């Protein structure tokens, strides 16, 4: 009976990784269409299985590797979003060299993110993080341009250092004190005040996770990687790993490491990173001209809002999941919108100003992009509002009103750059150089970006996916106003 329970609890992860394995096998036979179908089907099945498991009791009480059923709603969001992003980049992947392999890599990213969310064992967390990171390096590199290669190698070096920190921390804690690696053991270990080496080790692990998140002092890889990665990769990597890493940090730190000891540590360590990320991300985005680089800065700020929840403690677990899921949907949609804009305007140079006048040209795409921007700001009637409302609300409830205040101020500042996108879309006149064919001397700033687009434009897929994401954001924003917030909370709760 026990095996059956475990199998059904991890059904989403199993479905997803099966899809990835089939995709790799099919790619070996040059069956790109079938490979992408397999990867999308695996992720979509995982989404359904995850949603079906919402409300099932979890198993974080025993000595288990994965908390079966825990965060099923979040797992479902990860798999669903991943499946949508994969399906949207279908034509792009089918035309690419080893496109089936890229689909398989994306499916592994989805599966690892779903595993990280459910991890209840630090070794499982490490292995899943590493599987995700290795695929992410390859996805960033897969544009095969000079700037993408450079971004990938920088990403790799910084990620490898983070892995080194994590591994050293794990070796210290486990080697000195452990006979298992589960979170339950960590909780009992921390109660017995194990001394400075263990405390240092958990700081190392925290730094490593902050690296993977792209929080402020450790963010520099994210800016390059998200600016230069091909849209299908940045859409995949902007959302899923952030959900996974935030939920993993919440579970590890609020439920295991600091579960029974005073949480002032949490406040000071993560509160400082949260404030730094919010301020840096919001101010840094203001001066950007490139649309994707602006979104990368916005991502740093959004990680800051999520870390506010982490410094509040375990009561903010569900709010954090709501906030980061809303960010992932809106963020992935806006990265994918870059692909849609490029297929509408093949000569787009990637700047925010280059979006001018798109509101008349592509009504649905522009409206969807506007919804995504409003959700990122946290406007009411969008999903992003509920995330920020719940997180800042929980911060005020435990008396950290200053964290909430900084968060609200940073949101106001961030409207500066989200607003500039809206202004470009709807109020600016289109520039001749983008509406018409060629203007001498106005070559795109990055020559490599041109060979990403050009003949390989990706059709209507991205546009439809962006509109779908916007519909979800609006739906999740409006339905709780009528039906109450409890349903939303239950979907994202730990179990």
């Amino acid at each position, binding site marked *: 009976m026990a095996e059956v329970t475990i199998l059904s609890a991890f059904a989403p992860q199993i479905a997803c990784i099966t899809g990835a394995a089939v995709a790799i096998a099919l790619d070996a036979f040059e069956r790109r269409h079938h490979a992408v179908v397999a990867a999308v089907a695996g992720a979509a099945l995982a989404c359904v299985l995850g949603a079906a498991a919402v409300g099932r009791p979890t198993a974080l009480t025993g000595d288990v590797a994965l908390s079966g059923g825990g965060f099923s709603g979040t797992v479902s969001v990860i798999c669903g979003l991943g499946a949508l992003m994969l399906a949207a980049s279908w034509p792009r992947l089918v035309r690419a060299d080893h496109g089936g392999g890229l689909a398989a890599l994306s499916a592994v990213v989805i599966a690892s993110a779903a595993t990280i969310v459910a991890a209840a064992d630090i070794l499982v967390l490490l292995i899943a993080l590493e599987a995700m990171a290795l695929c992410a390096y390859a996805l960033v590199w897969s544009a095969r341009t000079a700037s993408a290669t450079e971004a990938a190698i920088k990403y790799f070096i910084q990620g490898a250092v983070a892995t080194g920190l994590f*591994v050293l921390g794990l070796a210290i804690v486990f080697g000195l004190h452990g006979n298992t690696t589960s979170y339950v053991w960590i909780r009992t270990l921390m109660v017995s005040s194990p001394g400075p080496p263990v405390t240092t080790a958990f700081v190392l692990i925290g730094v490593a996770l902050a690296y993977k998140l792209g929080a402020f002092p450790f963010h520099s890889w994210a800016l390059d990687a998200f600016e230069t990665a091909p849209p299908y990769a940045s859409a995949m990597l902007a959302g899923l790993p952030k959900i996974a890493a935030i939920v993993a940090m919440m579970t590890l730190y609020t439920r295991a490491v600091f579960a029974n000891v005073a949480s002032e540590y949490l406040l000071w360590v993560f509160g400082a990173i949260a404030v730094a990320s919010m301020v840096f991300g919001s101010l840094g985005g203001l001066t950007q001209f490139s649309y994707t680089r602006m979104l990368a800065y916005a991502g740093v700020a959004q990680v800051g809002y999520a870390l506010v929840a982490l410094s509040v403690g375990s009561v903010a677990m569900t709010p954090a999941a709501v906030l980061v899921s809303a960010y992932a949907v809106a963020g992935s949609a806006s990265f994918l919108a870059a692909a849609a804009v490029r297929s509408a305007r093949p000569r787009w140079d990637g700047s925010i100003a280059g979006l001018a006048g798109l509101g008349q040209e592509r009504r649905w795409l522009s409206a969807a992009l506007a919804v995504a921007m409003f959700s990122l700001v946290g406007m009411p009637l969008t999903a992003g509002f509920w995330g920020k409302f719940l997180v800042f609300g929980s911060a005020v409830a435990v008396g950290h009103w200053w964290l909430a205040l900084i968060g609200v101020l940073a949101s106001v500042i961030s409207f500066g750059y989200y607003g500039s996108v809206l202004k470009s879309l709807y109020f600016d006149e289109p520039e001749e150089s983008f509406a018409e064919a060629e203007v001498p001397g106005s070559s795109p700033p990055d020559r490599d970006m041109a060979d990403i687009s050009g003949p390989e434009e990706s059709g209507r897929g991205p546009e439809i996916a962006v509109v779908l994401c916007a519909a979800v954001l609006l739906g999740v924003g409006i339905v709780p106003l009528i039906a109450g917030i409890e349903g939303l909370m239950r979907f994202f709760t730990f179990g």
Partner: protein
Amino acid sequence: MSLLVIAVGLFCIGLYGVLTRRDLVAILASIEVMLGSATLLLVGLAVAGRTVQGSEGMVEGVGLMVIVLAAAEAAVGLALVISVSRRFKTTRIDEIVKVRG
């Protein structure tokens, strides 16, 4: 305790290498030193019998996992370095960054 000092010392040598070396292959080697220090700590503790009762085999198992991880990382890293050297005709990181300006 001396094992801990050796392992952390080795880790710091690796970190220093990552931060100061400018050649990608040397950086990769330094990363391997960092990961190796963690393996050394785990295996050393197991051999010295300093681990907790009931963890026999488990510590070595984790050590083995770290080795697998390091190997996977080296494989991806070397593939990236090969791609860099083909495209830029150099493996020095400062020259790659200069290309982009």
